[in-house]
């Protein structure tokens, strides 16, 4: 077997022969100049767990919210300990539009319908304008205008909901009622939805700007090279190409809208019997009645009645069940955007 030290002259010093033993080296045990202290090593090992705990806390939090809301909400439907008040069936709550807690009628359909109406109207306003503004910022606006629009959207998203509410209460409501309704009150879906639309439009604008900016330039160039105008390229090529992401943007806007409470509570009029009132008012066109009848939603009812109901009462428990419903709806929305995202990647 060749010796490591005198093989150089003929054999290559580094054989690729796997059977050769690794040469034994008597290395002097060097005192390492730099070593990590015990503490440093322990910190490195245990910090991992610390960070993981923080992550798990978030997971636990979501479980906790679900659990506590469900536990309190269940009191409205089950004869739990300490629950002396009336017990309701799911049917008379979720399938009834009859809301009159003082005579034991707890149908929450008016609130669900109210939430859906106001968010639907808000989306109707915010989605097209938001998407078109997104296209404008991404494709048409000169640099200074892009910056300006971003700042405008940053400010709009930063304004607190109570300030939106006070603006609606002090500026929009009087203006609308004086201008169009011959001074009858303007509370209802129209003004709430308009304000809600301004609140969620920054979300839709920023996500759709991203969507348009991430499209390959080749798409637009390809279209314009065929002689299409700028607008034709936007309408026939860019918007269809960005559609999945625009849909995600809209759904996220929906998520923000459905959970908003304070701003709407201040302008919507808070009338749980809005369906009856709307039917009764025959002096106006149906559209106007729909838009300007004081109404209520899931969130506004929570804000309105939570401080006024006794803990443990059916009414109070039901409010927590409504909160749970709201939470499940937003979770569904998040899962829907996930699904949309996956389709996009596929």
């Amino acid at each position, binding site marked *: 077997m060749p010796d490591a030290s005198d093989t150089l002259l003929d054999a*290559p*010093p*580094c054989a690729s022969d796997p059977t050769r033993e690794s040469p034994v080296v008597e290395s002097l045990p060097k005192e*390492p100049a730099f070593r990590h202290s015990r503490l440093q090593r322990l910190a490195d090992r245990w910090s991992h767990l610390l960070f993981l705990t923080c992550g798990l806390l978030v997971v636990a939090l979501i479980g906790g919210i679900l659990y506590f809301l469900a536990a309190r909400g269940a009191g409205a439907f089950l004869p739990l300990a300490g629950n002396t008040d009336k017990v309701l069936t799911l049917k008379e709550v979720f399938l009834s539009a009859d809301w009159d807690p003082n005579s034991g009628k707890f149908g929450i359909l008016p609130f669900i319908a109210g939430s859906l109406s106001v968010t639907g109207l808000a989306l109707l306003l915010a989605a097209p304008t938001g998407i078109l503004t997104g296209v404008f910022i991404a494709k048409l606006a000169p640099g200074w205008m892009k910056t300006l629009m971003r700042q405008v959207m940053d400010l709009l998203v930063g304004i607190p909901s109570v300030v939106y509410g006070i603006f609606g209460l002090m500026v929009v409501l009087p203006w609308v009622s004086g201008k169009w309704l011959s001074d009858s009150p303007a509370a209802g879906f129209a003004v709430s939805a308009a304000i809600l639309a301004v609140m969620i439009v920054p979300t839709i604008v920023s996500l759709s700007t991203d969507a348009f900016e991430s499209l390959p330039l080749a798409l637009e160039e390809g279209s314009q090279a065929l002689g299409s105008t700028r607008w034709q390229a936007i309408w026939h090529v860019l918007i269809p190409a960005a559609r999945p992401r625009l849909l995600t943007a809209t759904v996220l806007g929906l998520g923000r809208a459905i959970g908003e409470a304070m701003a709407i509570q201040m302008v919507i009029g808070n009338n749980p019997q809005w369906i009856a009132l709307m039917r009764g008012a025959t002096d106006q066109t149906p559209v106007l009645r729909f838009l300007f009848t004081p109404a209520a939603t899931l969130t506004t009812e929570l804000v309105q009645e939570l401080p006024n109901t006794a803990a443990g009462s059916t009414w109070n428990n039901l409010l927590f069940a409504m909160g749970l419903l709201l939470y499940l709806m937003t979770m569904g929305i998040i899962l829907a955007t996930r699904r949309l995202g996956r389709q996009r990647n596929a």
Partner: protein
Amino acid sequence: MLSPQTPETKPVKLSVRNMDFRYGEKKVLDGLSLDIHAERVTAIIGPSGCGKSTFLKCFNRIHEVSSAVKVSGDMQIDGVDIYRGGIDEVDLRRRVGMVFQKPNPFPKSIYENVAFGPRLFGVKDRATLDGIVEDALRKSALWDEVKDRLKESATGMSGGQQQRLCIARALAVNPEVLLMDEPCSALDPIATAKIEELIGELKENLTIVIVTHNMQQAARVSDYTAFFWLGKLIEMDLTERIFTTPRERMTEDYLTGRFG
């Protein structure tokens, strides 16, 4: 430079036997066996994608930081398996320093860049740190250029200076081996010449392994050259012999530019 006429007197520092490297299902390195001598410069050459950078990174296990990989076979430093259980990869990386393809100084001052390593190991004394920094900068032939602006940001230096700063930073923790992964690929010819000169000086008391795609550079700086192809070691020998009388046909083809 080592020639075939003078016998090797330095001990083997790094020794590799039957080493495989898998990245997921893919085998990137296949059955490598070679020895690297202390205080010599060993160059690893080969076409892109032949696994030479990967091989280099196995010596300080830095690939483990970012991805799940599997190394089998034997890799030893001073006769100790570096993949054996109980080996502290953090200490290993202190002993086996690394210089990367692109200069990667921290966005801190020149001084803080060099002092970063010693500080990691709890060196706090200002005078000691000053000494370490000056020593490292002198060894990397940077001291005269930067001694008056140690407090300035390292990102304002030229590319070549940045790379020498990275060498100084590696030297400051007193490594036994220095791995260099195409250290000149982002540099101009003058900066490259400086680094090559530096390599010649550094090998006085350091084992250097350098990956390069530049065959002339391998010929200029190294004592040994290993030729990799598709994850296999084709041939390793004294640089002089590899470049004059390679034993393998493939090596010759590569060196004469017939493929690769």
